[in-house]
């Protein structure tokens, strides 16, 4: 017990406390000035805005993938099921260079897209693509077990009572999956907001346009502007806290809705 707590404090609590102590050295006005400077605001807007957009795409596409994997049988199903975890396992720097090579103007996908006039690499679209990549497993792996365990009888009941298949999906299945879907969305969002490795290669990193908040922290550090780096980090850390807290509450809510077996 004591060992747990002391190890935890050495590795996690002390470093985090250091971060908050450092931010307390700033006066509220300084803190506010850093956060509302044009470059910081734009970096936060890029990170949070694109992360939310990417997490929303993951929510929809993740649901489609889960449905295909759980409900249908098709050749290669087990392989694709395993492949979902690749973004978890692939080091982010590798994902970053791979996505850049793929979507660069001469890349396998970048070339046909460029012919259509769509530029992906080195634009905010590239950030969006990398954030989608990194978020896929979160939605799939949170929703998949819930759909698998869903009692088939409630669907059969709805269907035999005359509900159309679409009505059953919207009114019966979707509400049962809602906590898992929201959890997946939150986790994918949290991951995308903080993501660094897979984004910076494809982003272009143009200040105010395609510069993500974690990169701005790194830049401020390399300029020895520790106060600026700390202020941005504190804001992002607080958002992480809130998201974890919300996810834990969501899980409890989900458990209370499902009767114990």
């Amino acid at each position, binding site marked *: 017990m004591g060992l747990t707590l002391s190890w935890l404090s050495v590795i996690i609590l002390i470093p985090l406390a250091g971060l908050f102590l450092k931010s307390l050295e700033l006066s509220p006005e300084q803190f506010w000035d850093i956060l509302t400077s044009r470059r910081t605001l734009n970096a936060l807007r890029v990170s949070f805005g694109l992360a939310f957009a990417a997490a929303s795409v993951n929510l929809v596409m993740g649901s489609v993938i889960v449905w295909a994997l759980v409900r249908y049988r098709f050749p290669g199903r087990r392989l*694709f099921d395993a492949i979902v975890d690749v973004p978890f396992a692939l080091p982010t720097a590798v994902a970053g260079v791979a996505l850049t090579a793929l979507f660069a103007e001469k890349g396998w996908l970048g070339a046909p897209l460029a012919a259509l006039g769509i530029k992906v690499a080195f634009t905010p679209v590239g950030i969006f693509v990398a954030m989608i990549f990194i978020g*896929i497993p979160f939605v799939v792996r949170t929703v998949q077990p819930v759909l698998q365990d869903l009692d088939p009888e409630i669907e*059969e009941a709805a269907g035999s009572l005359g509900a159309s298949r679409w009505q059953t999906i919207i009114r019966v299945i979707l509400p049962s999956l809602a906590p898992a879907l929201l959890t997946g969305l939150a986790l994918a969002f949290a991951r995308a907001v903080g993501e660094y490795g897979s984004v910076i290669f494809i982003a272009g990193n143009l200040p105010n346009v395609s510069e993500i908040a974690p990169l701005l922290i790194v830049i401020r550090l390399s300029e*020895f502007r520790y106060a600026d780096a700390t202020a941005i980090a504190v804001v992002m850390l607080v958002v992480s806290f809130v998201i974890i807290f919300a996810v834990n509450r969501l899980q409890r809510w989900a458990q209370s809705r499902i009767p114990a077996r």
Partner: protein
Amino acid sequence: MTMQIVHSGPVTSSNEKTRAREAFARDNLRTEPKAVRIAVITIAITFLTVFVVLPLVVVFAHAFSKGIAAYLAALAEPEALAAIRLTLLVAAISVGLNLVFGLVAAWAIAKFDFPGKTFLITLIDLPFSVSPVISGLVFVLLFGAQGYFGSWLRDHDIQILFAVPGIALATTFVTFPFVARALIPLMQEQGTQEEEAAISLGASGLQTFFRVTLPNIKWGVLYGVLLCNARAMGEFGAVSVVSGHIRGETNTMPLLVEILYNEYQFVAAFAIASLLAMLALITLIAKTVLERHLDEGQASDH
């Protein structure tokens, strides 16, 4: 939220017809028309292929684009070998530390009740959702030249930042939750009955742990170590902030990928990247095998 009820047909129609229709309806209650099924499968496969399969294939295609000889030559560079050695060392340190801690933490959380347990679990989870850059930043603030322990470290000539200890610390921080998270649900499910039996039969605490607890959770331990190791070897953001990028000294494999890529040495960058991609694939295969063992273990318990 009222359910609209649509009568599927007149009840008075012939019995046989009704029965056939009912059987057909039952089969159809839990599935969709064929066209919808094919569309859903196609969308899922296309999405996974574009966003997951192709990036993986691209790594190997670029790594071998100038032939196997160029690939092997890139990996035999002293810089590459130094990066591989450092990555293995850092992974060994952080997996070792987190294995010991993860066991103790999971044991404390699963087998005992104490105030602040939820807070402890939240703390353990935190590195999962904190930006890796922030994980690196906190150590710069502690051990950097202007950090809280900076001057003390300088006076005692101890180098943490821009050296192996800093990289190991940041990696340990980032991989902190894996072992504990893999074990907590497993140990909670197994409860304390077997341990209590062992203790009441006269076994000491340590004997109980090694003879009863550990064999019960061995697959879970392996599972946690596997994921912890994969993340430790592949960590980029946190390590990037604390490493200082000293060539041949503090560059791990992911950092070397970045450096080579920015220097337009694409074959070399993708050669290192391909090693990391293979690590990821091996990890996934091993994970699938372990998950089967874990499922069997749970099935045999009930």
